[in-house]
């Protein structure tokens, strides 16, 4: 891992992103703001597809919050949280489609799944998407050496 794969990142960035995502979706649900799903889908997509620099909340963390904090206790591989974000994009796009076709309940169920998992990840660091990534990576033979 030391000499292979992308540069490790501060795990607090993705956790901040997840906290904002979770809170936003919960508020959106409470106020029936259905546009929140596509908005956050785009937010997640930017970070997942192009890297942390392009995720709005990741950028906010890097520019405004991280300078005020000490160094992280440990670093993490960026690939699992990006994969988890990609999974979130899929769910939120599906939620958006559900809203468009009038299936509001389905749309909110999908959104709340994302909100709950993102909230759990933000608070505990448990990343279900990251675990799935590891399973997929092992099955496809992606070489990552610790």
């Amino acid at each position: 891992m030391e000499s292979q794969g992308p540069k490790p990142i501060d795990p607090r960035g993705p956790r901040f992103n997840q906290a904002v995502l979770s809170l936003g979706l919960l508020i959106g649900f409470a106020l029936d703001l259905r546009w929140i799903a596509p908005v956050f889908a785009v937010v997640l997509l930017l970070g997942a597809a192009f890297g942390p620099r392009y995720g709005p909340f990741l950028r906010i963390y890097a520019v405004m919050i991280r300078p005020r904090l000490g160094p992280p206790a440990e670093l993490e591989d960026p690939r699992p949280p990006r994969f988890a974000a990609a999974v979130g994009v899929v769910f939120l796009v599906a939620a958006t489609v559900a809203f468009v076709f009038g299936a509001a309940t389905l749309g909110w169920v999908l959104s709340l799944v994302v909100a709950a998992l993102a909230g759990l990840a933000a608070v505990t660091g448990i990343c279900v998407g990251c675990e799935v990534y590891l399973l997929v990576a092992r099955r496809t033979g992606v070489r990552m050496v610790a």
Partner: protein
Amino acid sequence: MERLVVLVLVVAAVCVLALAYRRRTRNDVADTGHDLPPVPAPLVDGSAPTWVIFTTPLCASCGSVEAELREAFPAHRVVKVDATEQPDLAATYRVRRAPTVVLASRDGEVRERLVGPEAVRAHLAAATC
């Protein structure tokens, strides 16, 4: 009103899971491993105390932990075990997080069990005082 109920249920579920996780993590860190079985050969070869680092393919801090242990204890052996490749061995030593580091004596007896890079660094800091 229904939305509020659902909201409360979702938040409550996340809180319960988070508290359970935190409790498990605290217990894991406090587990010094003195009741663990001896570390088997070939991880231990009888020549020197051995630091066994349980890693995973995505452990970003495992490399630095390995380097710090090698520098702090040049006379000790340091070996890495991929917990995902050897899940049975990882389960034996109650590995739930990477890195989990087990210090074994020359004959394999577990002397210390450290969970996470911060525990390793705290141990190193205490050892150098």
